[in-house]
């Protein structure tokens, strides 16, 4: 008995003081990374939430820390939740980032609005690891601004204990049977894409009529939606708080690993195939150090660590080779050609379409009951009148009081 307690205690102590084991990363050319050592340089990285291996689990790699140890460059890491949020943060100015990881259409929009710095690919030799099918993508035709980081599809994650029948159409997100059990994207482009696909449109036309119709259908859906979320979805789906939610394939893998009741399906109407890529925004003061960081992310072992942690599909051939078979053959991460045939990639829309979408999105989010739009002006006038009345009454009263 005593032995057992001692063993338990020892185990506890080990757990308490276990420092994550340092898994040395092997890089191709170590001398390349020595350039800025000891200069006290730092770079600001702005990434999606939970989108890099952070070494929290035993035996995994903390990518940022490895980079810091290797190069002596400090990484200031912060996160965003959607492309639109990233765009707003950059657009409102003031914040100075050296690395950002937007998705395809946002990269296109940023290139058009001159928000990105062209990359010097001489500083990114590891770019050769990127699979040729991801080079010169449609959003960055000359491949001047971006280096692909991950890719994936959008589909429906559902809880098999709460949904009966097959999930094969976006229609199920409009199914009144699941009222209050549906989660929906909290960003405009992804939400609109689903409505557009469901209505049989392309999500790249920017046709105002089609956008309006999609907005209508999203408004229709609103009473059925439990919540509009982004990464909150992990917690909610894993805990069985909701039955259905559209989200990214890679995240579905992570969620299914935690809760085997969950499953993932790509609807037959077709879906979005996205690429998230690493870019350097205009105004970066550490471009070369940032390129070093990009190169580091393209290293096979780093790519592998990230791919295993994030669960998204990797465009990095060298990392893919290191991947274990189970993951490589996972149909969620690497779907069949047949599924991929039926996908479209987001293109950046023109300014008018973007504006209209922003406006419609605000409308969708703010509608429920119809309230008269004169309510507020009337309320304002009432306030002023009340204020005047009180003052007048008070003055009269004072006068009356002073008469006695």
């Amino acid at each position, binding site marked *: 008995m005593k032995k057992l307690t001692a063993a338990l205690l020892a185990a506890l102590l080990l757990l308490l003081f276990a420092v994550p084991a340092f898994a040395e990363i092997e890089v191709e050319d170590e001398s390349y990374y020595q350039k800025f050592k000891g200069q006290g340089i730092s770079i*600001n990285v702005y990434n999606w939430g939970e989108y890099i291996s952070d070494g929290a689990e035993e035996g995994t790699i903390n990518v940022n820390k490895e980079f810091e140890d290797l190069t002596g460059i400090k990484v200031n890491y912060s996160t965003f939740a959607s492309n639109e949020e990233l765009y707003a943060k950059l657009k409102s100015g*003031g914040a100075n980032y050296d690395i950002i990881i937007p998705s395809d259409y946002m990269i296109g929009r940023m290139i058009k609005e001159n928000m990105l710095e062209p990359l010097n690919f001489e500083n990114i030799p590891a770019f050769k690891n990127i699979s040729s099918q991801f080079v010169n993508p449609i959003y960055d035709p000359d491949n001047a601004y971006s280096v692909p980081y991950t890719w994936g599809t959008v589909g429906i994650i559902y809880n098999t204990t709460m949904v009966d029948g097959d999930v094969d159409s976006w229609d199920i997100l409009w199914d009144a049977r699941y009222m209050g059990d549906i989660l929906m994207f909290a960003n405009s482009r992804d939400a609109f894409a689903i409505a557009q696909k469901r209505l049989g449109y392309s999500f790249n036309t920017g046709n105002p009529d089609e956008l309006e119709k999609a907005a209508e259908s999203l408004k229709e859906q609103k009473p059925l939606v439990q919540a509009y979320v982004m990464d909150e979805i992990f917690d909610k789906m894993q805990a069985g708080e909701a039955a259905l939610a559209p989200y990214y394939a890679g995240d579905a893998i992570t969620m299914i690993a935690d809760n085997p009741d969950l499953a993932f399906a790509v609807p037959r109407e077709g879906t979005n195939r996205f690429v998230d890529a690493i870019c350097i925004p205009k105004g970066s003061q550490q471009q070369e150090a940032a390129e070093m960081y990009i190169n580091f992310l393209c290293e096979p072992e780093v790519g592998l660590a990230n791919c295993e942690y994030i669960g998204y599909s990797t465009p990095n051939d060298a990392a893919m080779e290191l991947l274990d078979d189970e993951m490589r053959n996972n149909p969620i991460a690497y779907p069949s050609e047949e599924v991929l045939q039926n996908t479209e990639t987001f293109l950046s829309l023109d300014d008018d379409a973007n504006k209209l979408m922003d406006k419609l999105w605000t409308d969708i989010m703010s509608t429920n009951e119809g309230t008269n739009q004169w309510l507020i002006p009337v309320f304002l006038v009432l306030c002023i009148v009340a204020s005047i009345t009180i003052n007048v009454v008070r003055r009269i009263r004072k006068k009356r009081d002073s008469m006695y």
Partner: protein
Amino acid sequence: MKKRKWLSNTYIGLIFAFLYLPIGVLIAYSFNESKSRAVFTGFTFDWYAKLFHNDVIIQSLINTLIIAVVSSIVATIIGTAAAVGINSMNKWMKSAMMNLTYLPIINPEIVTGVSMMLLFVFLKLQFGFTTLIIAHITFSLPYVILNVLPKLRQMDKFVYEAALDLGCTPLLAFRKVIFPEILPGVISGMLMAFTFSLDDFVISYFTTGPTSQTLPVTIFSMTRRKVSPEINALSTIIFIVVLATLLIVNFKDLRKQKKVQRSEVGV
């Protein structure tokens, strides 16, 4: 009568249960073995150990403390001086200044945050420590002034003038006569500024930069996915520290009171 006492005690108990329910949940989950908040699998101290290895949390805690210390000290200096000045103004100027002071208190925080963001962008200030400290000083200033002013008003004006007549320079007179009198107000103002700065989220959210995330901003980005129990552990530690401090202060007060009472009885 007894029945009423019972009723009122139940009432007080219920409200405090309401106030402390979520805090109990927070603390309980800092001991939860599982990372998920869906299930309570077992008791562990792991998260407390892991907390000290979590660079992101520790770094933002340090940032938060630096910003709170610097901004509360600067706000106290500027605010105390301002209160002294306002106290000696005539009625019209005083009311103008007071309206200006109330403005940031009454104005919704989000509007203050947004307006400062616009200003910093316009001034081309890089978002970071500077912008955060400026913002925190700005919203703490009114609280310092409102704490110091009543103390100044209670003071006998003539003591200061007497000190001047007796040959003190204004600065010396301030140090020797006014300052000791208003010190309690200055201290409570500084504490308030410090507390508000520690806990501020809304204004920091609009003025933060990539290098200076404060704890509330970090917590916000976590709430969008999953709050790691390490944060619960940190809050539990903060809670216990504050509780201990308050208890010690209260206890000392009580002892002092008793002493005073005893000496009064002795006389």
